[in-house]
């Protein structure tokens, strides 16, 4: 007598071994242009300038380029770049977050939010020569706003010591795209704050300040941190706006780098590579700090 399990074993025909699935995915074709672009215009140039930073004009290994970074003019350029980038990033983060919070959380008219986001989308990409010209035409010595203030309010902006071609002038100009960029990044993050969290904290006895202190800001912290760093990098790498606005009157590191690489009087391409290598290091350190801070601030996330 054949038991039931044997009968089933006999009844079921042996399945042919499945053909080995091809390991090639056609999806690779879709990402190939991106990979090629990244290799050709990001990875290869980065490696090229890192190598170049350690070479002299004849291609021999040297640390002289790095040593030259200690020149007072270069140190000053790094310091000014860092100051402008940090200042514009922090101010942009504060004002951008406050404006985004006002648009998202408070009872403003419904049309305001899409209008603000549309404007921010445009303004965050408005940089370079057009932005520099716009500020010269409004806040320059003969700019429209300067003229109107002087003519109709008797207020001479430049008598206060303000100068558009200065640290604060460039910082204010950068804020034109920094604040909108912050608004664009923070709006979805603020949308992620659940109404129930605010209500739960209120019903448990918390004030509005306590809700922001203990719940909302810690929840927003990773987004705030990431967005502020993005603003820093945005300002730190900017060159066209600064060059168009100040020419060489404000010595920031990107203008110095630009001068070295394009073949200025003091043309030294390898020193330019070293300058760029220094920028990579600073950006790398700030990214590392960001990752560390974010990992501490996001322990509660999956």
């Amino acid at each position, binding site marked *: 007598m054949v038991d039931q399990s044997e009968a089933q074993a006999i009844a079921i025909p042996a399945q042919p071994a499945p053909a080995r699935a091809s390991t090639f995915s056609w999806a690779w074709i879709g990402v190939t242009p991106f990979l090629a672009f990244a290799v050709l215009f990001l990875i290869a140039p980065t490696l090229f300038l890192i190598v170049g930073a350690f070479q002299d004009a004849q291609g021999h290994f040297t640390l002289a380029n790095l040593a030259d970074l200690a020149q007072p003019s270069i140190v000053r350029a790094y310091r000014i770049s860092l100051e402008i980038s940090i200042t514009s990033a922090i101010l942009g983060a504060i004002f951008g977050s406050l404006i985004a919070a006002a648009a998202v959380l408070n009872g403003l008219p419904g049309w305001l939010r899409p209008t603000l986001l549309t404007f921010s989308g445009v303004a965050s990409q408005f940089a370079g020569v057009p932005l520099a010209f716009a500020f010269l035409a409004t806040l320059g010595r003969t700019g429209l706003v300067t003229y109107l203030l002087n003519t109709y309010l008797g207020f001479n902006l430049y008598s206060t010591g303000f100068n558009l071609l200065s640290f604060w002038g460039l910082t204010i100009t950068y804020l034109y795209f920094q604040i909108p960029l912050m608004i664009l990044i923070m709006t979805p993050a603020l949308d992620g704050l*659940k109404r*129930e*969290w605010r*209500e*739960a*904290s*209120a*019903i*448990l*006895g*918390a*004030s509005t300040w*306590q809700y922001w202190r*203990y*719940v909302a800001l*810690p*929840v927003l912290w990773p987004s705030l941190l990431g967005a502020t760093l993005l603003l820093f990098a945005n300002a730190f790498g900017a060159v066209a706006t600064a060059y168009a606005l100040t020419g060489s009157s404000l010595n920031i590191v990107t203008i110095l780098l630009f001068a070295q690489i394009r073949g200025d009087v003091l043309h030294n391409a390898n020193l330019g590579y070293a300058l760029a290598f220094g920028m990579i290091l600073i950006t790398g350190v700030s990214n590392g700090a960001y990752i560390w801070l974010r990992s501490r601030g996001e*322990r*509660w*996330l*999956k």
Partner: protein
Amino acid sequence: MKFLELEGIQKVYGPNTVVQDFNLSVDKGEFVTFLGPSGCGKTTTLRMIAGFEIPSAGAIRINGKDVTNLKPNQRQIGMVFQAYALFPNMTVADNVAFGLKVAGQSSEAIRKRVGEMLDVIKLPQFGDRYPYQLSGGQQQRVALARALAIKPQVLLLDEPLSALDAKIRLSLREEIRSLQRSLGITTIFVTHDQEEALSMSDRIVVMNEGRVEQIGAPFEVYNFPRTRFVASFVGTLNILRGKVVDGASGRITIDDQQVIAGRSMGNLQNGEVRSVALRPESVTLNGAGEKRNAMQGIIEEVSFLGAVVRMRVRFRDNAISLDTFNNPGAPPPERGAPVTVSFQPEDLLVLEGETH
């Protein structure tokens, strides 16, 4: 004096009146449920008690104190939300401690109270976990502990079980009720689930379109509905169309079969056509001798649901559903089989208003 009083509450948004003339008095320690379909105003009323909405008219008093215009953080109320609303950046212990912390209690008192509450919800070892590390049922228990930690005067539960799966829902509702009884806390529970309302409440407030339709104990609301809406919303109901033969004695005909209706909403006029309601569990199959009303019909549908067999019996234009317990010794009748269904006159309720 009642512990929680809602007097003439009204809420208007522009041209829409979402709650009107809501009056309710709740005793201390009572468990009252607001039951109704979506948009009936039950959650709005709850939010007015919490202080998230201010009534357009009327007054809310807790323990004799008028709280109508107080902010939520001044009312000493606990609330559990449908979507848990645990603070994601805090551990379970920090969540439970939140209300005590913002009240400025000492860290020792907070630690002690948090320990007590975690014991109450049977999660003493979960204090260091974050909300994302908990199941839905565990999160809702933590939310309950957080609400109770501040020793609130009133506990508000806004559909706290609706996001959970059926099995957890059942066990958690028993836990909530048991906890509420042991703490003796006055509780308002909002749900659209009639089974939850019937099984948990001391009293049910049935709401529809911003109005209170009926307030009563579950037994009363289920068995003696005062309006057509309550009759149809609470429990499963067969609604049939009948013609009044003799209003005085309650005799009516349904598909030319004469029966007696023991209860009626409003007077019956001879010759008028009215809707009549009959609960499925009131009907007995082939038991004509036991009950005074009997009707002949044909089995139209049989669904075997395990412990229960649900059948649909058609008379002519009308049909009813009835449930019988599964009996392995007596298989259910086949489709098309002639049957007799019987029920008592007091189980047949003539509804108010127009015919269905």
